């Protein structure tokens, strides 16, 4: 590197690693071509009477049928509501617990085994348990989605607090910050971890929401998929798969947008 290069304070700048390829770049849209080509081939060369692989044009007719029955939009709304409520609750509880557990010095050793166990408990296994204990209702879905998506947020917040820079933690002590001030400094410095946790948790939360609807037949997109499958309406199954995919896409871009705007406002250097 020449001396004229200004020292940038981004993470890679500090380490000064030149990378073979900047892997963070967004994949170019042209990469969608394989899927598009596949769908076109499927449409024109596929067997129009196939039970397993119905033509893409039939998916469209199938989804219009669902829409005419009046279930489509209300199901999407139900799924989205459960998802949004859960992710907000998970973010609030996860952040507070993460800060609390991260501030306890002996907390690491005492809680790691328990947290590790709970985090590795498959959410899927908990759905039937929640259904039998709490009954099949939206509260059950909320509990189960929060329980399974809280871990990335909690653990990332805790790691961020535990790795608080020594300067920051000694300033907290020296300035005798307490209460709200101390908390806001901590939240501010843990923000990247919290946001990373939410980004990891969001797709998980959507999957568990769909799973809960799918297993317990609670109204939502998951239940629509279940009934389509039970009726062997394969075109409808594929169409609803696309709907679920679009939901996931919306969730991902929403979360990335929120993350970008929060990080822009609070500066990238924390």
């Amino acid at each position, binding site marked *: 590197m020449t001396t004229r290069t200004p020292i940038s304070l981004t993470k890679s700048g500090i380490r000064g690693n030149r990378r073979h390829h900047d892997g963070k770049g967004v994949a170019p849209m042209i990469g969608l071509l394989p899927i598009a080509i596949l769908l076109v081939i499927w449409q024109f060369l596929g067997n129009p009477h196939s039970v397993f692989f119905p033509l893409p044009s039939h998916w469209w007719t199938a989804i219009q049928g669902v829409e005419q029955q009046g279930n489509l939009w209300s199901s999407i709304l139900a799924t989205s509501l459960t998802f949004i409520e859960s992710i907000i609750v998970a973010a609030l509880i996860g952040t507070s617990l993460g800060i609390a557990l991260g501030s306890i010095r002996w907390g690491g050793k005492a809680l790691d085994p328990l947290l590790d166990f709970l985090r*590795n408990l498959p959410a*899927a*296994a908990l759905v039937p348990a929640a259904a039998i204990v709490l009954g099949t209702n939206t509260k059950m879905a909320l509990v189960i989605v929060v329980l399974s998506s809280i871990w990335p947020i909690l653990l990332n917040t805790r790691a961020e607090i535990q790795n608080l820079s020594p300067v920051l933690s000694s300033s907290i002590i020296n300035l005798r910050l307490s209460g709200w001030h101390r908390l806001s400094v901590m939240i501010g410095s843990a923000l990247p971890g919290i946001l990373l946790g939410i980004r990891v948790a969001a797709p998980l939360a959507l999957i568990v929401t769909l799973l809960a609807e799918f297993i317990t037949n609670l109204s939502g997109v998951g239940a629509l998929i279940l009934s389509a499958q039970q009726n062997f309406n394969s075109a409808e199954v594929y169409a609803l*798969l696309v709907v679920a995919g679009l939901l996931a896409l919306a969730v991902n871009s929403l979360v990335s947008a929120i993350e970008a705007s929060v990080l822009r406002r609070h500066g990238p250097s924390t």
Partner: protein
Amino acid sequence: MAPHRRRSKLIGWIAPVTMVVIWQLSIVTGLIRFRYFPTPVSVAEALQTLISSGALLENTAHTVLVALLAWVIAGVLGICLGLVIGLSVPIWKGIMASVDVLRSLPIIALIPVGVIIFGFTLKLEIVIATYAAIWPIIVNTVSGVHQTRTELLDVGNMLRMSRWERMRKLIFPSSLPLILVGLRLGLGLSLVLTVVSEIVGTPQGIGYALISAEQALHPSEMFAYIVTVGIVGYLLNSIFLYSAQALSPVERSRESNPS
């Protein structure tokens, strides 16, 4: 060092034991009241019955074998595909967006497609678990290859290494930490999706036993299976971490990959 280590191990038991005791007490004293919420003691009893009848071992063996098989398939395919996509820029440009779309499809919505194609068979379980596990492995392999330092590649050029040598001696070892993260995420997903496809359909394994216990209104038996799944997941993860540490000293602890 030894007594200190023993103490820290003991500390790790305090939290779980406290939790179980609170769970037991709050039900016995009537603090929480749910019709089908078993006490830890009855769960332990159910666990014992299931162990002595052999049902637990049989179901667990089925689930673990399927999950491991799917994970191995996903690992081999995923690392190969990841290396190909990561090494060639034109291929990366031409296919990566499709990979991103496919991996963000909610896997739960894919299970019914699998059911329509394969029916409630063993094949369904393996295909679904493989499909779920392969994406983090591909994506992490690709970013591992992309994060190879240019200095390292310069060394390869200087030593006139062949393509294959560069890949085997430079690129693969330097991407190994990220590949291992992908494999670990994949292992977890493979187990979860095996259990899910058993819950949803395939009439074998822990997932099926779990949902049958629910439908038969045997909550303590169901919780016994949940505890089993938790222990299996925990053990698989620990075994993997332990062997990964032997393979490569760096294991990133952060969960950096959504999916």
